[in-house]
């Protein structure tokens, strides 16, 4: 082993070593994660069932759509304001398809305002497919997927206008949000709609929690997507993250225990330290 390490350290006369041994833990972490992720993804692809916890926000989605149907008012779905390259926008499109299926089944209108022209094409496609999934391709209304503006605050004003004029009974806001989250959530609350919001952008979560009825927080957003789509790649990723978290927590607890045990410097045991401090 020592010979191996010294080999790694000596790439040549006056040269830096081949490998920085201090970075081994990072290498191990990356490799371990990769191994768990690929094994889980392969398993998910083979059809091995990976259970996903059902999240409260998911039930809220169905509840919100149901309530809109009872009241005979539309559902508003805002897929965030970022471009399609943002992973949250892509997942939002997957959830949109699910929502569109539900609204088509119930015969409720679905309004989708978007800030980006590329996202608009994706949103149209998602709604169309959702209607087909429900067996009601006629439920797709092209005018209800609306490109409002490319400017953040102008888009925000446009959505607020829809909330005030068309009075949707449910506002679903899922995706990447920035400063406009506050204004959207407030206007929606004032219009009396039931609000379900979700984002992995932590800085906007406080406003959603305070002004919406249900909030899907952080990583829950990805779990919701995986639950709805059962996409093997995503399932495997979530599974791997769970396993790595478990290992990390175990290591952390052991590490803290050992650190506490060996905390003493001058030949004390942890017990004498404890006695001296608290006795």
């Amino acid at each position, binding site marked *: 082993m020592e010979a191996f390490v010294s080999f790694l350290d000596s790439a040549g006369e006056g040269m830096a070593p081949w490998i920085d041994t201090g970075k081994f833990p990072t290498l191990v972490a990356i490799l371990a*994660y990769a191994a768990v992720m690929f094994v889980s993804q392969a398993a998910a692809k083979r059809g091995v069932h990976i259970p996903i916890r059902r999240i409260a926000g998911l039930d809220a989605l169905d509840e919100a759509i149901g309530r809109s149907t009872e009241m005979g008012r539309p559902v508003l779905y805002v897929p965030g304001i970022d471009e399609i390259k943002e992973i949250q926008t892509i997942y939002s499109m997957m959830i949109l398809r699910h929502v569109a299926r539900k609204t088509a089944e119930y015969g409720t209108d679905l309004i989708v305002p978007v800030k980006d022209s590329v996202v608009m094409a994706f949103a149209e496609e998602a709604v169309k497919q959702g209607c087909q999934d429900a067996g009601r391709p006629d439920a797709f209304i092209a005018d209800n997927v609306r490109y409002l503006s490319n400017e953040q605050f102008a888009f925000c004003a446009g959505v607020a206008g829809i909330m005030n004029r068309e009075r949707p009974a449910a506002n679903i806001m899922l995706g990447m949000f920035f*400063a406009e989250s506050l204004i959207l959530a407030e206007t929606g609350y*004032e219009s009396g709609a039931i609000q379900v919001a979700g984002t992995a952008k932590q800085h906007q979560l406080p*406003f959603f929690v305070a*002004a919406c*009825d249900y909030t899907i927080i952080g*990583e829950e957003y990805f779990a919701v997507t995986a639950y709805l789509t059962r996409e093997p790649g995503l399932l495997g*990723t979530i599974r791997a993250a769970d396993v790595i978290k478990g290992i990390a927590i175990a290591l952390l607890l052991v590490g803290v225990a050992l650190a506490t045990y060996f905390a003493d410097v001058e030949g004390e045991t942890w017990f004498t330290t404890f006695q001296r401090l608290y006795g």
Partner: protein
Amino acid sequence: MKREIPILLTVLCGLAITWAFFSPYGPSQAVNDELLAWGTVLFSVAFLLGIGNLVRISLKQISSGHPDRYYKALLLLMLFGYLGVGISEIHGWFGITEGDNLRRDWIYNRIFQPLQATMFSLLAFYIASAAFRAFRARSMEATLLLVAGAIVMLGQVPLGDQITGGLASRWLAFLMSYINAAGQKAIIVGAALGTLATGLRIVLGLERSYLSE
């Protein structure tokens, strides 16, 4: 081949940079440095491409008689006027040279700076209005959030702390340093695992969605 070569390029660059992270060996650092330089150059070119997009959309709106067409014309005028001054300065055209005090800084200080600073200060008003109209303690979660928020707001500022008899700042210290820190650590770890997953898939050539556009 249309897809294979780009994927090969992604994998090669990705692996070279990952390798250089672990290996201080000279040549791998040199490769790393050069690849990073390419990255920054391409990043800049991509930014300039984005301007082409802005100009195209604005021109379309002007020619189609959009209600905002005069504003769009103003935008383009400002854009090209400023670019003209700046590029002349950079290349020393028309006898305009770059010195200690730049002409483009005049525009920066008087137009860009106050406008951007003010745009974001509008949010202070929206927070006040949302505080009254929409922030409701309707669940255990929302209640906890609002109470913690109020403690932080009062504990941070001199008067707020005085009216709570010094309690707010003590609670603030504990909340921020221990409970907030715990929550932040969990969020950080989750985000890092997400980056790790996406990064691995890209570097190993499994993620190809970025090539589809």
